[in-house]
């Protein structure tokens, strides 16, 4: 066994609660990309990174969830999440939950150092240079806030997308500006959130691209839902779906295809 898999890192997939519940195909796309990059992927039993509690000011609950995540995932060589927001939560915010507890901090720090967002993990850690795929079409890419500003993810997805034969990226105006999702923000302040996502949807539609990509399902659901409500012809997918060649599957909020079509 060891001879066969000795150099294959063991990755614990932190699938994220939204992908788990709403769009499992992003999870399978992630598994495919990780396996293609030479990783052995495992999915331990899991729930959530704790962000809803953390951003609502409930540190006790967040801490309880964080302990579970640490215990579940610390055995892996890497923890990878198809979300900048959840990876950022673990990597940047878990340490402050355990401030002043050296034993826990040691474990947290060790986990943080091995926790990555999916696409940046593929490019920066696994040194994936290109994706052998044909895709005839124009896409536009939204830089989700946590990935962009907490983890510095901007070049990595574009690098892999640009390696796909036939694919063209039409950059939108203000690709780095928030889509207005903000987790619980979008239901606490729906009108403000709507005003922000409306602007975003107009910027997306103005590119003429028919596919919107991003690395976070929360933002994607927000933007896709708005584009659909406005009747724009743009479909939305997680970037991992396209990179894994899964664009035959229905896009977010699209009807499942009838057999044979």
């Amino acid at each position, binding site marked *: 066994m060891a001879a066969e898999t000795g150099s294959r890192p063991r990755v614990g997939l932190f699938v994220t609660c939204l992908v*788990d*519940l*709403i*769009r*499992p195909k992003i*999870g*399978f796309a992630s598994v495919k990309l990780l396996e293609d990059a030479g990783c052995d992927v495992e*999915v331990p*039993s*899991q*729930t*959530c990174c704790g962000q*809803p*509690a953390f951003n*609502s*000011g*409930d*540190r006790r*609950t967040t801490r*309880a*969830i964080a302990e*579970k995540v640490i215990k*579940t995932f610390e055995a892996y060589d890497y923890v990878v999440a198809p979300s900048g927001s959840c990876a950022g939560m673990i990597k940047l915010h878990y340490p402050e939950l355990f401030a002043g507890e050296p034993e826990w901090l040691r474990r947290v720090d060790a986990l943080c150092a091995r926790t990555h967002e999916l696409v940046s993990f593929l490019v920066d850690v696994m040194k994936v240079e290109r994706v052998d795929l044909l895709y005839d079409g124009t896409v536009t890419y939204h830089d989700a*806030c*946590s990935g962009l*500003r*907490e983890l510095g993810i901007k070049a990595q997805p574009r690098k892999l997308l640009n390696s796909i034969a036939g694919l063209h990226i039409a950059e939108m105006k203000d690709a780095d*500006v*928030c889509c*207005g999702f*903000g*987790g*619980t*923000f*979008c*239901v*606490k*302040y*729906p*009108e*403000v*959130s*709507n*005003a*922000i*996502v409306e*602007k975003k949807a107009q910027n997306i539609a103005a590119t003429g691209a028919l596919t919107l990509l991003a690395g976070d399902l929360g933002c994607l*659901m*927000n933007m*896709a*839902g*708005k584009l*659909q*409500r406005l009747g724009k012809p743009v479909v939305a997918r997680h970037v991992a779906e396209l990179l894994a060649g899964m664009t035959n599957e*229905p896009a*977010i*909020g*699209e*009807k*499942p295809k009838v057999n044979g079509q």
Partner: protein
Amino acid sequence: MSVPITSPQFKGNAKAALKDVQLQRALGKVESGFIGKRAQVAARLPEFEQLRDLARDIKDHTLAHLDLYLEAYEARVKESGGHVHWAATAEDARKIILDICKRLEAKTVTKGKSMIAEEIGLNAHLSEAGIVPIETDLGEYIIQLRDEAPSHIIAPAIHLNKEQIEADFRRVHTDLPPERNLDEPASLMAEARAVLREKFLAADVGITGANFLIAETGTSVIVTNEGNGDLTQTLPKAHVVLASIEKVVPTLEDVSTILRVLARSATGQEISVYTTFSTGPRRADDPDGPGEYHVVLLDNGRSSMLSGQFREMLRCIRCGACMNHCPVYGAVGGHAYGWVYPGPMGAVLTPSLIGVDKAGHLPNASTFCGRCEEVCPVRIPLPKLMRHWREREFERHLSPATVRTGLGFWAFFARRPRLYRWATQRAMRFLALFGGNRGRMHWLPFAGGWTRHRDFPIPERETFQVQWAKRKKAEAKAVAEADANARRAAEAAAKDKAEAAQ
């Protein structure tokens, strides 16, 4: 009189702002006027990021020794012939300033732009005492004509369009010919200049804020673009500097460092048009200057921020970059925040000054996109500080019951992976059946906030974890079958071999 607070009505304020066509048109200026310019000017300065670190360090150092630097500053002001007044509260500051004005028998007072004057409600207080305060910053002058509060800390009238300002000028400047042309912004500016010139000459007292107070020299510094501050503080009998205690910095050198990030972050200028240093009253051989020089140092809750979680907020140099880059501010403007300080800096500072019970919406009305922190010249971790306010709210049971109940319900499952998997699988299957084959829903019970404005995707029938478990089980079964087949084949081969050997 204190400043009216509508922060508890943030939601209503925001809804009204989103429907206000004039406001929405005006808010476009925030983007065109500030964001691109800041990015360009920052990119042109290779050491900009290091300067931000230095500015942060200077402010941190000062805050760590604030008592020392304030006392040194006071001593230098006195040496230069000025007076320092310590004001623990807004009320104290109002009284000190009114007493100075009364002693000098002031009838009119000119004012340079000062957010601290807004914070203590100075204009209303002076007016009640029969003293006429006149704002001399163009934006402040305009909103004073309209009896409004500033909607931005450096561009107080940014919520207005040119046509509205023209209408205000025609309404108030009734001694000017009604047929005059005010089509161009330049003509509005010229009219305000002409009107204000008389006021500058007539004023008895000039009140300014301060961007910095220099402990080394006892100097106050204002950073402006219109020159109104200089006329305000030079011409009258007395110059009153109204500043909060965290404005002090140790040295002139420190000021020049922070100035390099201030205008760049604020307006995208390399340096503002005027940077004016004032030290004491007019000396015998000075060609001009005020006869008296007073500094009113306001605490108003800041010293209690020094020892707590919100100390970093005291680094703020009031550039406005956080609000310029905030998607929420960009959507609703400054007045929606309901008190003096809007945007991300207001979302942190306002609860400190008026209480989180009143200002609780402000730190909640953020997507935590982090763009404010990304541009803050003194690197204040604004989202983190907003989160600290949410923690205070949660601890004090101030957050809404629906939020607490929902969170508690979710947390119960989130801590129990097996139960969570079981429950979410059933919930998603139900949602998928409820939603049918349409791909998305236009309406979803208990999620009106979402579906009022956007569609919601119908989940797959099985959660990822359930699908994954099935896949692993199938794979294991396939492996076991393959193993069994291989074993049977090997046994058969061995048997054949044995038979052949016989």
